[in-house]
């Protein structure tokens, strides 16, 4: 636990020192929200969810890419691969929550959103963060180059934006849960939307984290040609 904490701490410090990036991480969902604010109420909130998801997954992608060169030598220093990916994931969840809180406050205080269920918005934002962080890490693990990874994120977010949410294809998109819960929060629908969104969000969070674990463990495995006579 101590090792995991050190990794999370250092990852968080590294990200918090990128002031320009932090501003942009906040500005991206904010821009999505403001642009749609004069339209239908629900659209601005759904756009905010998508912007938040995009921002956090991009942060995760770049964070993982930055750590790629250092992680093998940290393995040699005594860390196991789960310390490294779980520590990074924990830091991203803290960062994502830190970005989501002022955005949630904005929605709660915005007179144009006075009829929305704030609890539902908070839950959707939480799921945006918990899905986006491992999703960005997964893209980084599958596509090691940052530019290609960024383009993959762009494709996914673009598809998420245009796909019919009622269609079967929408359910395989990572950020569908926030749309469902958003509908519950904005349109005051029954709890079916909330339940579906919650199950989808939790399932995607767990599945993405598991895939990240498998890929990270494989990349940082002890190679088969190494024969250790005593403890490392």
């Amino acid at each position: 636990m101590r090792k995991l904490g050190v990794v999370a701490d250092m990852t968080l410090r590294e990200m918090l020192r990128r002031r320009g990036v932090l501003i942009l991480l906040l500005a991206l969902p904010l821009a999505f929200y403001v642009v749609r604010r004069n339209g239908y109420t629900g659209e601005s909130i759904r756009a905010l969810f998508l912007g938040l998801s995009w921002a956090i997954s991009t942060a995760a992608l770049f964070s993982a890419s930055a750590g790629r060169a250092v992680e093998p030598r940290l393995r040699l220093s005594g860390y196991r691969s789960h310390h490294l990916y779980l520590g990074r994931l924990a830091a991203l969840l803290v960062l994502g929550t830190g970005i989501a809180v002022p955005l949630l406050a904005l929605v709660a205080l915005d007179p144009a959103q006075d009829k929305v269920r704030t609890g539902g918005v908070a839950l959707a934002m939480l799921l945006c963060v918990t899905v986006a962080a491992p999703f960005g890490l997964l893209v980084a693990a599958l596509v090691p180059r940052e530019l290609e990874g960024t383009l993959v994120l762009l494709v996914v977010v673009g598809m998420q934006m245009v796909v019919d949410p009622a269609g079967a294809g929408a359910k395989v998109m990572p950020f569908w849960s926030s749309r469902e819960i958003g509908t519950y929060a904005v349109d005051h629908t029954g709890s079916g939307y909330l339940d579906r969104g919650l199950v989808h969000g939790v399932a995607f969070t767990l599945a993405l984290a598991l895939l990240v674990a498998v890929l990270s463990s494989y990349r940082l495995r002890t190679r088969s040609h190494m024969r250790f006579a005593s403890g490392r």
Partner: protein
Amino acid sequence: MTINDGWLRDLGMELRRRGVPGGTADHVVAEAATHLRDSGEPPMAAFGPAGAYAAVVSDSVGAAWRRARRPAPGPMRLRARGIVKRYRRRDVLSGVDLTVHAGEVAAVIGANGCGKSTFLRICAGLISPDKGTVQVDGSIGYCPQDGGTIDFLRPEEHFVLVGGGRNWSRERSRAKGRAAAATLDWDASTPMLSRHLSGGTRQKLNLVMAGLSEPDVLLLDEPYQGFDRGTYLDFWEQVWRWRDSGRAVVVVTHMLNQLDLVDTVLDLSGANRERWS
């Protein structure tokens, strides 16, 4: 402080930096002081620059002393056998062997692109060979040629990160890192981020990180890139300190002037692949 005092102080520092033992260095400084006093000559006229004179003295007494102090090799720490690596159908490494014992320094030399870094990364377990095995007794520390540090962390935070792998407290990691950095004539308590360090200082950080967790085997891939002359000498002093404390050290190098001070040389040049001791 007189001119003589300043020159003698510089001479003493340069001798120690070059690994001349304390007693011998003091003796050389005392002899030089006596000569300057008796002759009345200015030091630059009598001996030239302190660094140059220290180099001459070091070459004559320092190297012999280093050879004399070599401890007997200990148990095998690293054994690479039959390492083969191909890139795009080109053999980079074909059947390379290397054995390094505790208390030994091995140098890996060869032309650019002959596979020195690849061989070291295979020994560290960072990449897989196409054939061959690497047997290691103990833990490994690895210093890459470049990269390997985190741009937005301070040097002491790097020490905490590496020490954390050994479950060390943060203060212990910082203290050990600062002490190791001091041997390279570097004050690592700077609040500067790694990305703002000069290339040479960043390599010092890399080197300190590699040795911080007190590994049994140190794999150093040309770690002195960007070092000034003094730091380069400090680096070799550190290598010999590691050797004397029973570590096995492998250094990728093309600085042939240090090869008489290592125990084993692995030459990976294509036409001249050989191992000599």
